[in-house]
């Protein structure tokens, strides 16, 4: 298994439950504002926490606008550029049960970092059809981009060091709504 994985400890809390909810409410309003309403919009969440975030954004838009938008799930493992470098690829499946043709697809991810995941997601979505446009929403933008990719909607801009981890915890998976920065223990 190589060198032992470093242990991480919490350094700071970035968003609590209320702040996370407010950020999503604001993003939902921005999506409606930018697109002039909810017509022909669709969400695609990136596994795992992007999917939960996409469902929450869809619920917010249903509250504000009364429109129920479709939400799909995307697994980008087959589109990664580092297959064979990270150990066994774990495929959990893509489930987008609607046509993305002529839709504005809003890709939702929890943390935007190097941009490589989003690059893979763009390829994966375009392989499924031809959307009118693709927009990107992320809860946290932590910088360190390696590709020319920028988000359209950001919950929080967060300058980080590369050795830190931004952990998004969500009720559906982790039992709580919180975003924290973690750093390696052996310092």
């Amino acid at each position, binding site marked *: 298994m190589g060198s032992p994985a470093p242990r991480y400890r919490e350094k700071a809390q970035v968003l609590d439950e209320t702040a996370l909810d407010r950020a999503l409410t604001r993003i939902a309003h921005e999506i409606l504002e930018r697109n002039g309403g909810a017509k022909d919009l669709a969400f695609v969440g990136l596994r795992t926490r992007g999917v939960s975030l996409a469902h929450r954004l869809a619920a917010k838009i249903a509250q504000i606008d009364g429109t129920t938008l479709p939400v799909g799930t995307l697994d980008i493992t*087959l*589109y990664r550029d580092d*297959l*064979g470098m990270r*150990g*066994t*690829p774990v495929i*959990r499946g893509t489930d987008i049960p609607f046509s993305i043709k002529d839709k504005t697809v809003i890709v939702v991810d929890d943390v935007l970092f190097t941009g490589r995941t989003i690059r893979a997601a763009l390829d994966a979505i375009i392989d499924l059809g031809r959307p009118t446009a693709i927009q990107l929403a992320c809860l946290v933008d932590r910088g360190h981009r390696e590709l020319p990719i920028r988000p359209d909607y950001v919950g929080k801009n967060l300058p980080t060091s590369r050795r830190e981890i931004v952990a998004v915890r969500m009720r559906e998976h982790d039992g709580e709504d919180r975003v924290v920065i973690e750093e390696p223990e052996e310092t």
Partner: protein
Amino acid sequence: MGWTRKDLLTMRDLDASEIVLLVDTAASLQEIASREIKKVPALRGKTIVNLFYEPSTRTRTSFEIAGKWLSADVVNFSSGGSSTSKGERFIDTARNIAAMSPDVVVVRHSSAGAAELLARALPCSIVNAGDGGHEHPTQALLDLLTIREKKGHFDGLHVAIIGDIAHSRVARSNIHGMRKLGMTVTVAGPPTLIPPFVQELGAKVSYRLEEAIGDVDVIMMLRLQQERMTAGLIPSLREYARYWGLTLDKLARHARPDTLIMHPGPVNRGVELAPEVADGPYSVILDQVARGVAVRMGVLLLLAGRKGGDGA
């Protein structure tokens, strides 16, 4: 937990968690078959050679489609029309192909152990696509995936494997896999076609079709492999069909109504399987074929995508 093997040679080698990983991976890949654009870039730049020394329709085609859907370059070799007809030895042919740096070689051969021989001799990943009467692991995996999709789980299922057990690599691979997953296996056939090893593998034995198919979840009918039969192991095809052929009437009288009917193909219609059963509502024969592509995608992906693999 994860995939670390260079090769996929037998079900016997695998442990339950590896089998479940393969089945899970295949299950997640099935969605690709329903896409408008059936291609993902996962194995871009990888080369897969299908090295087939025995005739095959389903297996070779499905490995080829699986490789192509994953964007690998797939090359088909079949022994007819190759240097084999000029007398080149198997291992020499294989070494020459390996010299062209493929990432995965999929091999089918009439001799048991052919895949293992290649796995030892060649640096690339080897997939056993059937070696004589020994094993055919990807067939067992697609059978397991089909069973799980139809029954929802593996726990405590009872499977009857009927027919020519002695010549069947499909039976052997399935018995290994099913036993590891905690399933009960009964094999049944004429005594001349039941080999002595099956009890050692943990399978029960029956010599009556009517008895074997009662109260099971799955009936797997095997093809009578006439091409591998050298001695007179059965009196006649007609007699075999009469005693060991599965008909609607036998199903109605002896089996549960929700029993799945499986067959690895190609079906000898009217011998081991009556046409009305093969095409009937509980037959999942074509589901098996469809899942074959997903299983082979999963196998190729895990072999070529393993850490430190040729892709690193």
